[in-house]
């Protein structure tokens, strides 16, 4: 039988098939963080249940942590309680936890791959929808709710119905200064935010083959924004070279066998995909979102759409609503919108390549007068240290950016990093939902290069014309 990559990992992890045709799937790696785990541990202790295998779990605090003055600890009482709850649960169950001052600390989806905790062919879960990120390493990774977190803690397994396969084939290569962020925004715009519901994506084609693991992670990360819980990319030499440099890469005695297994992790020629789309990378231009859903994206040279031009009343209403929320007019030039804040960070774009890309653009220049605040939040302690060793922190600081400690920060604003009402932000994160970055805040998503340029200009502009 010819199999897709998804079929292969699925079959490999199937413990049994239930009578309703769902499968009991074995989970190799479980990442946990402070926000979605306390109720799960609570559930365990109420039922007097144990954790199945504490060694498969890695814990970190990232969502709800300060990005300045770490030495003072967490000052917000409620946040502090949440983080301490995680610490206590980890102590109680002997779970590997990265403390706020540990160099390994960072956004859960940045540290997993970076430390080599994520490996090809694994099943990996986390109580967080952007777990799809890890698919870039050919791991079947998906977000789960807290009940499932508890289930995996207690049983090392999850009951799941298999999804359908969706092939996203991207031919050609991206133009200069067009990034994988632009590509994934373009894909989401093309298939819509529910286009992938019920499917597992596999991204393939020349374009993907030529991308780094970091760039691939940006794509898999935002699979969920198109409705797919997981996005996969096959194992190849790029994956291998990335892994060999990781701290937790299998040791010498295992590596040959591991590689032998990893090399099977691709879809067979002629495997069946229930859905398929072909994208021409050459046609992708820098993208910016204008609305309150990631599918509301435009090419930098387009104008804000006019809701009246849509056929259905539903769509007209939702577009009008988005325009109202965002404080925009139909047919406005996206370049004419003045910005208030700049956020470079999040599990989508806070890795070293992203920071290098942004730093190159701001180097020697200053952020525009109308920008009230510009922050760079590295994805992890290691990213931060690497950037500092390259002098990237200084480039940002000299341009007027604040250089922060790692965490989710203004991606969701659970800590103090938030937008004020009606402030407009150019952000490298993944969600432009209403209130996501702060109550009544307005988010425009774009690539690190585009956001860096926007910081200098005070508004969005076409990066391909400026380099």
């Amino acid at each position: 039988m010819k199999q897709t990559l998804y079929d292969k990992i699925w079959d490999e992890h199937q413990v049994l098939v239930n009578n309703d045709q769902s499968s009991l799937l074995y989970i190799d790696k479980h990442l946990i963080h402070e926000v979605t785990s306390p109720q799960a541990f609570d559930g365990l202790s109420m039922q007097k249940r144990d954790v199945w295998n504490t060694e498969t779990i890695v814990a970190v605090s990232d969502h709800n942590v300060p990005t300045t003055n770490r030495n003072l600890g967490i000052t917000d009482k409620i946040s502090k309680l949440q983080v301490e709850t995680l610490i206590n649960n980890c102590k109680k169950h002997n779970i590997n936890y990265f403390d706020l001052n540990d160099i390994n600390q960072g956004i859960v989806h940045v540290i997993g791959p970076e430390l080599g905790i994520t490996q090809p062919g694994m099943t990996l879960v986390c109580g967080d929808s952007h777990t799809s990120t890890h698919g870039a390493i050919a791991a079947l990774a998906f977000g789960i709710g807290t009940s499932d977190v508890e289930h995996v803690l207690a049983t090392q397994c999850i009951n799941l119905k298999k999804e359908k396969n969706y092939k996203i084939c991207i031919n050609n290569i991206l133009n200069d200064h067009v990034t994988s962020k632009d590509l994934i925004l373009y894909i989401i715009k093309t298939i819509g935010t529910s286009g992938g519901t019920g499917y597992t994506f596999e991204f393939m084609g020349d374009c993907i083959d030529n991308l780094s693991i970091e760039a691939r992670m940006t794509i898999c990360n935002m699979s969920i924004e198109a409705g797919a819980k997981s996005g996969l990319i096959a194992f190849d030499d790029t994956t291998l070279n990335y892994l060999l440099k990781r701290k937790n890469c299998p040791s010498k005695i295992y590596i040959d066998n591991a590689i032998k297994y990893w090399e099977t992790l691709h879809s067979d020629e002629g495997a069946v995909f229930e859905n398929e789309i072909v994208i021409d990378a050459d046609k992708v231009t820098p993208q910016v979102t204008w609305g309150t859903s990631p599918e509301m994206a435009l090419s930098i040279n387009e104008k804000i759409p006019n809701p009246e031009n849509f056929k259905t009343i539903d769509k007209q209403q939702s577009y009008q609503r988005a325009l109202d929320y965002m404080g925009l007019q139909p047919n406005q030039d996206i370049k004419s919108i003045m910005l208030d804040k700049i956020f470079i960070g999040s599990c989508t774009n806070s890795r070293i390549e992203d920071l290098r890309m942004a730093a190159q653009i701001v180097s020697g220049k200053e952020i525009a007068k109308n920008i009230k605040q510009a922050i760079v939040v590295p994805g992890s302690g290691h990213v931060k240290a690497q950037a500092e060793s390259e002098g990237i922190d200084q480039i940002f600081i000299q341009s007027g950016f604040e250089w922060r400690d790692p965490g989710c920060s203004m991606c969701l604003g659970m800590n103090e990093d938030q937008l004020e009402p009606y402030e407009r932000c150019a952000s490298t994160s993944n969600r432009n939902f209403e209130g996501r970055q702060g109550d009544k805040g307005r988010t425009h998503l774009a690539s690190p290069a585009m956001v860096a340029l926007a910081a200098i200009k005070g508004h969005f502009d076409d990066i391909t014309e400026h380099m």
Partner: protein
Amino acid sequence: MKKTIIKGQVIPINESNIDTDIIIPKQYLKSIKKTGFGPYLFDSWRYEEPGELDSKVSRTPKSKFILNKKPYSNGKILLVGDNFGCGSSREHAVWAIKDYGIDAVISPSFADIFFRNSIKNQLLPIKLEKQNIINLFSECLSSNQYELTIDIEKQTITSPNNEIIKFDIDANDKDRIMFGYDDIELTLKNKDKILSYENNMKKNKPWLFKRDNEK
């Protein structure tokens, strides 16, 4: 206890892509409990001022928002547009809906993780054809008082004028909604099979079973 009937006022919100950030905003995710989220359901649509977890400060309800109007404020069934519950995997969204007193959500489509979280918490997600949804919305417009009766076991929705809509639901999901199983207990009945799978994998892929940082 077996639960088969959900009966009550419908709360129509004709919007697509209602994400879990809208259902329950981030500041409430700081809670370490599963309960008490009802007052914060649709928080930014419901109140003029942003709120805070456990804050006693009173807020101004937005009079236009449906949950601030009778009889909707006592609603039991949420009627919404496509792709409900998209975005963040936060189960808090389902906890908030349940805690408010809503037992069923009717939509043309749900985001996958939200759907799963609903089943786990005995919140009934009903998927209907677009046309049925359009009809329900227009009937809701015709009268404020609009109650539906959902028979989970028979998989039917009965309207005030006794029209019946059938809905599909996976047999096991249906049992979970009616009985609220302890899934962990059920899975642990297969403990031997999980162990034997695991032992097998320890031989085949031993590198997976070394603790990180200790390889």
